[in-house]
């Protein structure tokens, strides 16, 4: 057992850190060190900067645009990105549909889609949930009828986050209404500029733009946009879920909020001294930081497995469960530290920037325990797959 990174890995860390400092535009860095709260345009800009460096998709195979780094270097890179406070990149192309196309796409699909995901010429969003299909995703009712060389898609997708900024959407649609629920579903890529598509944005609880409803009215989709074959969508969805697991551990965001908590606690006073020197508040913060350390070690174990070319062990299944709860507790603590300052609501220029971002983020991350398979659904899956408890 060894908890340290090698000398070469540490040198790599320094290289990444220095590069990020130099590469980040002045205004972006100012915000990264303060409030955060980046817009989708900020994220796209940062994406392009990383693309130019060749570092936008370290987790992709080298031949399609990856960096060729091993798991440890990828981990270090992610850590440094998160610590720098840089905008998060849109995950839908880089971490979801991209890897799926790499694994299951045709050569043509790879050529057509992957380069534009890398270059930020095309952004993606996800079309899974429907108004009537949340946790019971396989009950989805958006249909895709066979019309020769193309499909005709009709229906409504919801929680299609960032669809208003996106060019493409990957969808699960029903191609065989007579088959058993999971068996008649197809994974398909749809151009959001196709006639018959309407995107209706809706504000999140944090009053930030993210969520959308997306409507499909007789939308023509070429059959070459099907990934994995007709009626193979459920297999695709499950494969994609595997990619999400470690992403939803929230290691970076948790670390980031913890830093903000401490920074704020150093500037506010209680009983005449900084909160950060008050034993009660120190203990409150320490409890969550210790919890974070245990959670971090679970994710390190998954990393060490990957580094050895093995699948992460069963313990990685708890990463989403623990990580999403933790980020909620941390944002809640940040609100507590702010005290009455937590009342602030989008008052740019009135309150300290660091404080302005907390409330909306706190509200938004209430979604963390819901998206990516609600934590209740995660528990159902772990109970069955790992603990092998009897089904009802």
């Amino acid at each position, binding site marked *: *057992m*060894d*908890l*340290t*990174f090698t000398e070469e890995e540490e040198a790599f860390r320094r290289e990444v850190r220095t590069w990020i400092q130099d590469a980040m535009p002045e205004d972006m860095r100012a915000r990264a060190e303060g409030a955060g709260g980046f817009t989708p345009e900020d994220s796209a800009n940062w994406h392009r900067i990383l693309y130019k460096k060749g570092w936008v998709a370290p987790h992709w195979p080298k031949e399609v645009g990856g960096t060729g780094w091993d798991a*440890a270097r990828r981990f270090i890179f992610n850590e440094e990105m998160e*610590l720098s406070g840089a905008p998060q990149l849109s995950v839908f192309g880089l971490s979801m549909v991209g890897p799926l196309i790499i694994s299951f796409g045709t050569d043509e699909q790879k050529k057509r889609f992957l380069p534009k995901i890398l270059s930020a010429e095309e952004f993606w969003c996800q079309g899974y949930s429907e108004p009537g299909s949340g946790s019971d995703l396989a009950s989805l009712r958006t249909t895709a009828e066979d019309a020769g060389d193309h499909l005709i898609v009709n229906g409504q997708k919801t929680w299609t986050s960032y669809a208003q900024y996106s060019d493409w959407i990957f969808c699960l649609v029903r191609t065989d209404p007579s088959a058993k629920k999971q068996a008649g579903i197809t994974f398909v890529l749809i151009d959001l500029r196709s006639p018959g598509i309407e995107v209706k944005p809706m504000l999140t609880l944090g009053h930030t733009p993210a969520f959308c409803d997306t409507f499909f009215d007789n939308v023509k989709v070429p059959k070459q946009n099907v990934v994995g074959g007709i009626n193979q969508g459920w297999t695709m969805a499950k494969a994609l879920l595997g990619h999400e697991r470690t992403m939803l551990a929230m290691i970076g965001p948790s*670390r980031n909020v*913890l*830093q903000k908590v*401490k920074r704020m606690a*150093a500037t506010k006073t209680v009983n005449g001294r900084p909160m*950060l*020197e008050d*034993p009660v508040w*120190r*203990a409150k*913060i*320490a*409890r969550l*930081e*210790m*919890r*974070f*350390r*245990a*959670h971090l*070690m*679970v994710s*390190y*174990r998954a*990393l*060490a497995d990957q*580094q*050895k070319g093995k699948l992460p062990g069963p*313990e990685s299944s*708890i990463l989403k*469960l*623990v990580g999403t709860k933790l980020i909620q507790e941390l944002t809640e603590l940040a609100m507590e530290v702010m005290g009455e300052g937590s009342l602030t609501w989008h008052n740019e220029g009135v309150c300290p920037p660091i404080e302005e971002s907390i409330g909306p983020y706190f509200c938004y991350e209430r979604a963390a325990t819901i998206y990516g398979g609600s934590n*209740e659904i*995660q*528990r*159902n899956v*772990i*109970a069955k797959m*790992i*603990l*092998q*408890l*009897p*089904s*009802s």
Partner: protein
Amino acid sequence: MDFELNQDQEMLAKTVADFAKNESPVERFRKLRDDDVGWDAGVWRKMGELGWIGVPFAESVGGFGGSFVECALVLENLAPTLVPEPYLASVVLGGMTLARAGNAAQHDTYLTPMIEGETTLALAHSEAQSRYDVSSVETRATPDGSGGYKLSGEKVWVLNGHHADHLIVSANAPGGVTLFVVPRETEGVNVTVAKTIDGQKAAFIKLDDVRISDEARLGEEGSGAAVLDRTMDYAAAAAVAESVGIATTMLHMTVEYLGTREQFGVKIGSFQALQHRAVDMYAETELLRSISMASTVRADEDDPSVRRGDISAAKYQLATGGIWVAQQSLQLHGGIGVTDEHDIGLYFKRMYALNALFGDQEHHVARFASDAAFAEAPA
């Protein structure tokens, strides 16, 4: 970054686990609960012969020059059947203290025989008022004018203190908190056996003008608190390692019970409320296992700023997650879990004992929060 055990460590873990399962099942623990000593000298000797006692000690004193990881592995794998031999008390508390504080002659006299399984040690550091503060010592070491000392005072909850051959005693000498090694059979050492909640034994020890020579002193006067502080880190990491074995066993027993017990005509493990509880138990157990790995590796680290954080975080996870697993496994067993007849309660009580030793939740939260690094560096 590597969380895997090497081949020798794998082998050690397996040998210990097999021994626990085959030669010291829980029934053995139940029998020895009622025994005056509570453990068996023959089994202890065997542990010495197998080399388990020597794993963390240098070869020069008869050990195997391993790391604390091996020591933690032994504890984790003895835990599933509650093997009662005093490994934690003698190897971790007594042995690690003696190894750090003693000179070659003292190692030769007290440590090597222990490593061979011929003797056992106990650490007498706690006092009625001290709780987890190792420097709160009212026991006095008064110089007798001819190089020796007279020890007077009272020690409490000395693990294995009722039967250890040698006690390591902390006392206040003119130069500050100092450690002494005292044979239990010395005149003036009065031992009262105290049963502990987990079916083991400890001792209350009254020292009544106990005369000892200068050779009994471990290190310089005043060096004791720092040594004990370090021992407490080893002990906390050891308790956490053992708690991993306890929690894992409780989780397995509970999942098995959920899969066999029927009510309302179905297996109770098919109820979602209970499934979700079991999954949360699994999560807490894996968090405990993961941070235990970190604390075990850190325990050998000399730099306290690197060592202490993960050890406190691990002991905190025992106090929160580990205790919660213990509570829930009892709850999910229903009425049978609250009987002495069922084993689940034995593990429950051991978890509480481990929680109470070497710093509780508040102690480790406060320690973690008072580290200079906590306020200065980003998390």
